[in-house]
């Protein structure tokens, strides 16, 4: 469990990125922080592994204040996946995945065989092990990034817009891959994105931010869609328009669900028949 207790972060130039923020991030669940840029979500993520230290308040991992932990050791115990993969361009795929185990003193040979196993876990062909990141596609690079994040089998996985830079088709594929992995591994995932659809798809818990690190609403996807806290949230998740504002139309062929543009979105399935 990760707990934020009245955390405030003011940068030296006076910008308040996060203001009196409190949140409990439950273990083995995916918590998605979503908001537009400048909403402080990345700052919050980076305070968990002490890339950034808060000005006020404290962050606890399993009831231990991270301020008292060695930042380098802390970071090695937490998986981190970022946009554009953040891979080392001068290391091969296998070496990149083995980075953190090697830093923790695992022998080269066992780190490599473990890296090859992880490649399989994230759906990468073993043939790619000795390629350099620049020889891979964007989607493959992100898979390597995820494998590297999982390499020390961390309890916590921090993901900073990991699929932001890949094309929509690959993104959808990676999102479902992450859902599958999370189903198997049950990590405590903290995921940052500005994409509401991604948040609704991946999150067990979603936190929606306004500018300046102020929480607009938090809850499960269903709670947020069913009862947006205010206009801001409603328009942010698009509950008032487009493909999320659905209504039922009765036609001769049966009941169909139609979005606000009048396009058919699906049919109303009989619950008993579906289950």
């Amino acid at each position, binding site marked *: 469990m990760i707990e934020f207790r009245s955390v405030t972060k003011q940068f030296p130039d006076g910008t308040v990125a996060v203001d009196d923020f409190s949140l409990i991030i439950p273990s083995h669940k995916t918590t998605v922080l979503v908001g537009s840029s400048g909403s402080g979500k990345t700052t919050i993520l*980076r305070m968990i*592994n002490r*890339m950034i230290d808060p000005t006020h308040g404290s962050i606890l991992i399993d009831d231990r204040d991270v301020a008292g932990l060695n930042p*380098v*050791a802390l*970071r*090695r115990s937490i998986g*981190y996946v*970022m*946009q*554009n*993969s*953040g*891979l*080392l*361009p*001068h*290391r091969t795929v296998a070496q990149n995945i083995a*980075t*953190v185990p090697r*830093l923790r003193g695992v022998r080269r040979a066992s780190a490599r065989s473990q890296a090859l196993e992880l490649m399989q876990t994230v759906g990468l062909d073993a043939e790619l092990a*000795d*390629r*350099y990141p*620049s020889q891979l596609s964007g989607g493959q690079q992100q898979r390597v990034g995820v494998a*590297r994040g999982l390499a020390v089998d961390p309890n916590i996985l*921090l993901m900073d817009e990991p699929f932001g830079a890949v094309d929509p088709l690959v993104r959808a594929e990676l999102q479902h891959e992450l859902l599958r992995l999370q189903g198997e591994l049950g990590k405590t995932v903290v995921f940052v994105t500005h994409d509401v659809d991604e948040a609704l798809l991946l999150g067990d818990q979603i936190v929606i931010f306004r500018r300046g690190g102020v929480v607009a609403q938090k809850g499960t996807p269903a709670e947020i869609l069913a009862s947006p806290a205010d206009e801001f949230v409603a328009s942010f998740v698009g509950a008032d328009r487009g493909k999320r504002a659905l209504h039922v139309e009765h036609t001769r062929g049966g009941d169909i669900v139609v979005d606000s543009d009048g396009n058919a979105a699906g049919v109303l399935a009989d619950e008993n028949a579906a289950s």
Partner: protein
Amino acid sequence: MSWFIANLGLIWQLTLDHIALSVPPIVLGFALSLPIGWLANRRRLARGGILSVGGILYAIPSLPLFVLMPALIGTKILDPVNVVIALTIYALALMVRTSADALASVDRDVLQSSTAVGYSAWQRFWAVELPLAGGPLLAGLRVVSVSTVSLVSVGAVVGVNSLGYLFLDGFNRYFPEEILVGIIGSVIIALVFDGILVLIGRLLMPWTARTTPRWSRGRAVSALAHGA
């Protein structure tokens, strides 16, 4: 040609002297430029100051510096150390800007992610910043190498022997063949040094070769052979 053959022993000795005088300034200048370049990148004010001092140092004419060296560091007039130290200063002056720029050119995302996965600052410098700055560092080092090999010759004027002795002696005796041998010899040393640096670069930075990795080419060939 007859002079060249008759004096092979002398020419070889001077070539070795020339090499012995060139290598330490290149290596020292490079090694010292790294921490100074790194420091220059820490603070903007420091960067301007350090880089300007580098430029000014390089503007000092070499001959007066060779002559002044004994007074500055208390060595004997004919001590080769004078030339080595003076040339190290030039190498450093040239290399500091390159090192600062090369280290500053490393992708910030890569540095951040290195920190995020748990590199300490010290490990990150050696394992990430230095290798990724390798391309521009090598380019700068090649300039320093050529420049140092050519400047060593000037030391002959203050009595420190190198191939420069051949220009000086040949000039005094109006003997073009000797001058020519000196020039060609220096150029060959410069070319060999450059070749060695490029080779070291290839060995230490295999990722900069943007071709298909050797193993997969080998595999493709064996696959073809099996298929046929």
